[in-house]
């Protein structure tokens, strides 16, 4: 234990130099602004700014890049709350209740609780990384394809909880999302699936494209219908920050979210993507009045945001301890480290303790800086919302198109935004909800990949899913969750039937 403290001291010493704090600040600020712009994500930004880091020392470079990463996470939540545009997988859940809160004039509270919850989660997660990083990554090695598949099944079952309306339609959306996820190249044979011969679809539909079209553009179309409902974003703003009551109400959700995010983030292979969804599901099921969810329940923002940030921090663990990047952003970090002359791997911790612990220390500093940056910004964002909608939405559209275009320099992506915008609008008109679709879209390919891989490695032996203890445990959880999800609706239908007979 004393070891950890002396290491942390080493780390903070390295990270608290004026230069490094400055770099952290710049990174977090740039990241936040980038994240706010719908479409443009941390990957593009980090790639853009990589050349700047050449002239910095390795620790400074990594600190700045990491700052951009979690800054962008937070910025993405900002757009999700304000204009219902999820820029990243992690901010989709935030749109559900966060945007509803904004419509009710509580944008400040939503943004504020997201910032505070994230800070708490980030601090705890940083501590976890420091204390148990290497140990946890060892344990995570037990997670094989069978376990991942089971985990994805749990996630998909939970996706139904994301919808506040008809369960039947929610499940239909999940299946459609799974189908959309199959578009692209087959992992084993490389053959094109459902790509209609369009080469840009060879690697599948871009998440950003789908999310912006389905959520953002559809939202704009819906807003334009209500000529007199200027109350969309012009509702009287009741205070810029969450009240003490808000904080008290959210605290348990923050705690639980932190736990979920920390655990899921460690799983290499991007287990962190599930964190906000799992948190939302948990909060909705635990709440005394679940019908508040989807209508502006603050726990629906606090929990997922904390889970999000905790996952973002702990996802550094596989990178720092094993040298294996769990997602595309971390892969960029690997590139940045390599260019700096540091080959990420199991030996980095031992050979380069200043770098390792300096990174961990700067994570916490970054979180603190994010709160400092974002709380005052809330006032600015809220004022921006006062701009008449007829001027605001073309701006939003422009930023989206630019953002989406820069992801792959592909005009096809922008075209697809229009397509999905139309689809999203249609979904709204037909009473379908897009959130379960999006989650299934993300989880589906992961699920299929791991299912096939598990079978491949087990030579077609299906019992592998139940003979491996972890996998069995997860599948049982999925089953349990399924019952929990279906039972209330079964009871409700029976009540309806009874009422009709009266």
């Amino acid at each position, binding site marked *: 234990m004393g070891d950890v403290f002396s290491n942390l001291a080493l780390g903070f010493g390295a990270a608290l130099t004026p230069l490094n704090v400055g770099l952290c600040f710049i990174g977090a600020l740039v990241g936040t602004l980038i994240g706010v712009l719908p479409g443009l994500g941390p990957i*593009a930004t980090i790639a*853009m700014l990589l050349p700047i880091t050449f002239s910095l020392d390795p620790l400074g470079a990594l600190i700045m890049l990491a700052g951009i990463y979690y800054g962008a996470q937070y910025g993405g939540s900002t757009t999700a709350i304000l204009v219902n545009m999820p820029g990243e997988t992690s901010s989709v859940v935030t749109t559900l209740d966060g945007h509803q809160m904004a419509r009710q004039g509580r944008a400040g509270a939503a943004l504020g609780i997201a910032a505070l919850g994230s800070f708490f989660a980030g601090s705890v997660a940083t501590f976890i990384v420091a204390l148990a990083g290497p140990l946890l990554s060892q344990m995570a090695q037990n997670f094989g394809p069978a376990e991942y598949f089971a985990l994805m099944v749990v996630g998909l079952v939970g996706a139904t909880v994301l919808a506040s309306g008809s369960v*039947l*339609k929610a*499940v*239909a959306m999940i*299946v*459609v999302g*799974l*189908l959309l996820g*199959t578009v692209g190249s*087959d992992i*084993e*044979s490389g*053959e094109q*699936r*459902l790509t*209609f011969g369009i080469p840009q679809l060879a690697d599948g539909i871009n998440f950003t494209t789908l999310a912006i079209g389905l959520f953002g*553009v559809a939202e*704009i*179309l819906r807003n*334009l*219908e209500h*000529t007199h409902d200027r109350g969309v974003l012009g509702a009287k703003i009741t205070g810029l920050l969450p009240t003490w009551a808000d904080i008290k109400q959210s605290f348990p959700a923050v705690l639980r979210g932190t736990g979920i995010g920390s655990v899921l983030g460690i799983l290499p292979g991007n287990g962190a993507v599930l964190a906000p969804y799992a948190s939302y599901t948990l909060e909705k099921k635990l709440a005394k009045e679940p019908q508040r969810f989807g209508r502006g329940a603050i726990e629906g923002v606090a929990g997922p945001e904390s889970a999000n940030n905790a996952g973002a921090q702990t996802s550094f663990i596989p990178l720092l301890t094993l040298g294996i990047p769990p997602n595309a952003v971390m892969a960029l970090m690997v590139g940045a480290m390599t260019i700096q002359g540091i080959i990420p791997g199991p030996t980095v911790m031992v050979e380069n303790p200043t770098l390792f612990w300096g990174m961990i220390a700067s994570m916490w500093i970054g979180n603190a800086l994010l709160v400092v940056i974002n709380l005052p910004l809330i006032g600015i964002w809220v004022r921006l919302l006062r701009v*008449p*909608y*007829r*001027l605001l*939405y*073309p*701006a939003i*559209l*422009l*930023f989206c*198109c*630019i953002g989406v*275009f*820069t992801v792959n*320099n592909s*005009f096809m992506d*922008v*075209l697809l*935004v*229009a397509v999905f*915008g*139309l689809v999203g*609008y*249609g979904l709204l*008109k*037909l*009473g*379908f909800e897009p959130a379960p679709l999006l989650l299934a879209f993300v989880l*589906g390919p992961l699920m*299929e990949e791991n*299912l*096939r891989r598990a*079978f491949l490695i087990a030579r*077609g*032996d*299906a019992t592998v899913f139940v003979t491996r203890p972890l996998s069995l445990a997860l599948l049982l959880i999925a089953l349990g969750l399924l019952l929990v999800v279906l039972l209330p609706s079964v009871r409700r239908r029976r009540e309806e039937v009874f009422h009709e007979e009266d």
Partner: protein
Amino acid sequence: MRVRSPQDLVGGIALILLALLAWSQIGELKVGTAARMGPGYFPAALSILVGLFGLVLVARSLAADGPALERWHLRRMIPVLGAIILFAFAIRPLGLVISAVGLVLLASAAAPDLRWRDSLIFGVALVVFSVLVFPVALGLPLPVWPRL
């Protein structure tokens, strides 16, 4: 048989059409067996599932009451979607300035309370801001001017 839920009926039909579209694209992909899934396995299974849900929804529309169809506001939809499509086709050959101006102008046309002067001025400011931020400040590889 009366249609008791028009919304569900249309939704169900949409799902069935989607399933048929997906099914038609499977083509020669090998489906394989459950133990050795080919590339076509998931798409095939999922298309069937989507179709089934479509059928269930259609059945429900005839059996249970549900919401009526909502109106589609084409007047709002077309300029907005058109603006995005315009941007998509214009950005690479014509550059950011022209595409952005086109997008802002076309999209603004969808606003119910449109005031051209306001939108024009704001639009120009917006385009200038975008050019300063994205290609210049951030160094993003966006073509700014048309390719001569």
